[in-house]
């Protein structure tokens, strides 16, 4: 028995020793290997990424969000004015509606700048705040029709409603859609009695709902600004990236978050707003031009949106304008002057081409689809460079959604 005890002790001791020194793993990987959970490492350079982040916050992000908040307030004023004049016997209602529509166009143009800057508070919790302000392509005319009627109840609370019933996309429908009939086609979803109401009654109902929408929009725009500005705001978080206690271990991580947002130009502007309606990507008409699949069909504001997206890309790239610290300076600093120059030229070319197009986007799609296809090519020039030379020279990572892109 004693011998057994000794043997057991030896065996267990041996086992314990082996347990403690058992495992080792090592690896080497290529430059494109992307599954590393190691934090991004700054490229070897003298560039001050904090200056870039500060420039982006002070010259691009915050001014855009502030401008949108101002535009939202102006839109609220014009919509309220429109509703006040709706029952007037003269043409003032028509004029007021035009003013409200102009205000919407202004606000939308500004928001299309912000679309390329969806980071931090805008992206949190599945882009909840962004979707409240603008939920396209998640839009539903029928859902808005339903809520126009539901909003007439005393206990209606717009803040509890889904994004497709709120924001700039809902306002586009209520301010620009001249068809007063509801758009619900699925049995049981139509707002009860709506099509039997008078035209004036329906205009007033949509206007009243527009007032709720603009009030909600102003609140959300101010929420966005509040979340970004100040010592506790996200703008400061970006500026402090890489410092002790920062949520970004290195400043390049914060730069990468902004570059991720810029890929909106690839996935949304190039593909969803241009390639899909012109038929390069399948649409509701098959693979031929399909105006109803454009972004802004009621206001026919799609081309202006695309131009705004490209303009925002230019601003982010330059950190504001030529005088500010931007990504172009970062590229120059790491020695890739060729990409720095070419990318700016390609962006300017794409903007210039988009601005040269005449007529509303819906007309272009049906009558000059080759021009829209050319616009696609111009934008693709930009996105191809962003996905390759830009990312690689600055040691940034592609966003996960673009890693499998098969362009």
């Amino acid at each position: 028995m004693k011998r057994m005890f000794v043997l057991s002790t030896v065996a267990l001791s041996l086992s314990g020793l082996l347990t403690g020194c058992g495992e080792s793993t090592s690896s080497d990987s290529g430059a494109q290997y992307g599954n590393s959970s190691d934090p991004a490492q700054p490229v070897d350079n003298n560039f001050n990424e904090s200056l870039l982040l500060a420039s982006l916050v002070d010259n691009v992000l915050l001014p855009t969000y502030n401008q949108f908040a101002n535009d939202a307030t102006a839109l609220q004023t014009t919509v309220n004015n429109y509703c006040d004049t709706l029952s007037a016997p003269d043409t003032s209602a028509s004029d007021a509606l035009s003013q409200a529509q102009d205000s919407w166009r202004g606000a939308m143009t500004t928001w299309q700048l912000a679309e390329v800057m969806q980071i931090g508070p805008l992206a949190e919790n599945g882009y909840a705040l962004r979707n409240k302000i603008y939920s396209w392509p998640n839009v539903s005319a029928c859902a808005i029709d339903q809520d126009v009627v539901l909003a007439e109840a005393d206990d209606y609370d717009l803040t509890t409603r889904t994004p497709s019933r709120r924001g700039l996309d809902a306002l586009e429908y209520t301010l620009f859609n001249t068809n007063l009939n509801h758009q619900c086609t699925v049995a049981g979803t139509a707002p009860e009695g709506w099509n039997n109401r008078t035209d004036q009654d329906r205009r007033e109902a949509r206007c009243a709902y527009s007032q709720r929408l603009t009030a909600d929009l102003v609140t959300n725009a101010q929420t966005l600004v509040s979340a970004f500005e100040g010592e506790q705001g996200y703008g400061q978080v970006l500026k402090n990236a890489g410092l002790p206690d920062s949520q970004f271990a290195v400043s390049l991580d914060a730069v990468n978050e902004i570059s991720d947002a810029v890929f909106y130009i690839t996935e949304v502007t190039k593909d969803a707003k241009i390639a899909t309606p012109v038929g390069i990507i399948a649409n509701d008409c098959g693979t031929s031009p399909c105006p109803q699949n454009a972004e802004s069909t009621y206001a026919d504001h799609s081309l202006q949106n695309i131009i705004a997206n490209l303009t925002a890309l230019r601003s982010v790239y330059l950190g504001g304008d030529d005088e500010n610290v931007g990504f172009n300076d970062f590229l120059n600093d790491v020695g890739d002057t060729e990409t720095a120059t070419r990318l700016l030229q390609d962006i300017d070319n794409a903007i210039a081409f988009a601005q040269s197009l005449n007529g509303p986007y819906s007309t272009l799609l049906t009558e000059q689809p080759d021009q829209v296809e050319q616009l696609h090519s111009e934008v693709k020039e930009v996105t191809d460079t962003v996905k390759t030379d830009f990312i690689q020279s600055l040691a940034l990572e592609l966003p996960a959604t673009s890693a499998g892109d098969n362009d």
Partner: protein
Amino acid sequence: MHKHVTRLLAAAIAAACHTSALAEPAAASVEHISIIGSQQQLDTTAGSVSLIDEAALEAYEFDDIARVLATVPGVNIRQEDGFGLRPNIGFRGVTPERSKKINIMEDGVLIGPAPYSAPAAYYFPMVSKMTAVEVTKGPSTIAYGPNTVAGALNLVTRQVPTEQIAEIDIAGGTDGYYKSHAYYGNAVDKHGFLVEGIAVGSDGFKTLDNGGDTGFEKIDLMAKYKYDLSTAKFDQYIQIKGGYSEETSHETYLGLTDDDFAQDPYRRYAASGRDKMDWEHNQLQLTHFIAGDRFDITTRLYRNNFDRAWNKIDGFESSLGGQIPTLQEILTSPDTDRNAPYYAVLTGQADSSVREKIVLGNNAREYYSQGLQIDATLDLRFAGLSHQVDLGARYHDDEIQRNHTATNYFMRDGALALTGEPTVPTSTNTEQTDAVSVYASDTITLADVLLTAGIRGEFIDGEYQNRAPGREQDFQNKSTRIWLPAVSVFYQVTPKHAVFAGFHQGFVPTSPIQSASIAVEQSDNFEAGWRFIQSDQRVELIGFYNDYSNLIESCSISAGCDTDTTFQAGDVDVYGLEAAYQRQWNLTGGWRIPLNITYTHTQSEFQQTFYSEFAQWGFVEQGASVPYLAENMFSVNIGLVGEKVDVNLLASYSDSMPESAQQTLTGDVRDSTLAGKETDALFNIDLSAGYQLTPAARLYGKITNLLDNEDIVSRRPYGARPNLSRQMQVGVKYAF
């Protein structure tokens, strides 16, 4: 046409036979194919080992390994397609997902498509042809790698006989079920051979919206040739085994909403109408065996090839971009503003708009697995003690080539129609592994005590390479080295009573694509048990405790990841109790009543609070349970067996299981979609009966799911899925 030919060939193998004797293979030749060996070894193992022999397998004629393993304690299973085509098996609480953490072997050789590079077992051997199933857990596991955290499952094929044998087995049943199985073997002088073929299929028990096939067809052919080299001094032979098998199954990852399940659990949505798995598998194995008075050595050279095309709905895509809900989200909440349009398209009630394009992925893959392994047993005596030394070494090489593509479809009038967009590649990469493994153990006999100490080494070199154009620099070379010790003690207290205890270290490697910063899975596994054996009954009671220092899980296609991605949970404890009771009453007139009762109780606890993107975890609170692990499982298998008649009844019960480690939804967009949901508790009864018409002919029948219970076995991969509906089958076997 090709399939019909092979099926006919399988049946013809037996039809050509003319001889009479049904011979059993010699016991000695079985033992080295079996990983458990003799009954004596079974009774004196310091750990949990289970053997289901040919007689037990024939009692129910199961085609599904999950049903076969219902009588083995400590086995946790997540059902999926009902037929068991791609089983999810775990032992003692390890994730059952695609059986990726257990070692699946056929005749002692790793049989998964690429056990190191891609351990998910999308190929599983034809259960219907096996003559034994062996389950090993506990310290003995270190003889089998690479996964030592849970255990090993060995499937034993028919042996080359020492005299002529032949049998044909034809069966049919509900839902168009058929089975044709035949084998013939003989031995002449030093030459022996066996040929065997089997074809199994069904029209399926589910119904597609707007019609379509939901069944499957599997074919398996095997041939063995053996040349006996025995002399007066040594038993020795060489053997070559070749096999070919294929499957076409109209299976899908798409399940149902809970409401639709309540209406008709066997419904399949229109969007799954084109889903289909096609695979081919072939194998070649060369074995040399030599045994003397005090040693035996088995050498195996093996190669397995597996090609598959797996077309199935992966989700939705929108030409307009934006956030698109997952299939799981849609089926969990089909009525929300966001999800309702997608649900209408899935069910074919509405045509797709440009925002609801259906993505069918074809996850085409090519695998190979090859190697050389040597296992030896030596009986030695030194230092005045008797030693049984087991040694083994293996060089193994496997590879997976992914050539995944995706094609978009519109739903049009209840059927899928191409969008016209080109098919695009999604994952084009290769993972390859060279692995050397060794093990050694010494069992010292000291009076009534068997003391075993052993160790296993795994030396793994993996390579990952993205083969997409322009991604040449997306590669990784990774090396992992680990030593895994095990110790155990067995004490024969009295001739009938024995106690045992053991420890071994558990290990699961990560695949070559995973970053080296992701730690391999390791655990300290302890167990202790008591065994009581007498002539007519056997009792075994084992407690186990697995202390994971890092539990890892990989998210595969079925969970929404295009390429397996590994997640880590850190410390997790799994512990429980396994009990088995076997008894046989011998009655007059040659009648006997065999009884087999098993019970498993398992508890699991995450040891920290954390968030993981892994869909089965989400926001995990300390103390939460591991998903898909039933706390209580119970089975009773009882029979009445006479000389001509036998009747068997298997009743099994499994508690409901959490579908996610997250216990409640928090409202965060990152919530695990199935937080708080559980599978149904499962209670199943299978009944079988046989009648010996003549000494050579046996008529048999069975009813599976006798009570026709309709339960949710899982809501993964996407939506609620049913257990197998009630099936009735009859067949006849004729031994020539």
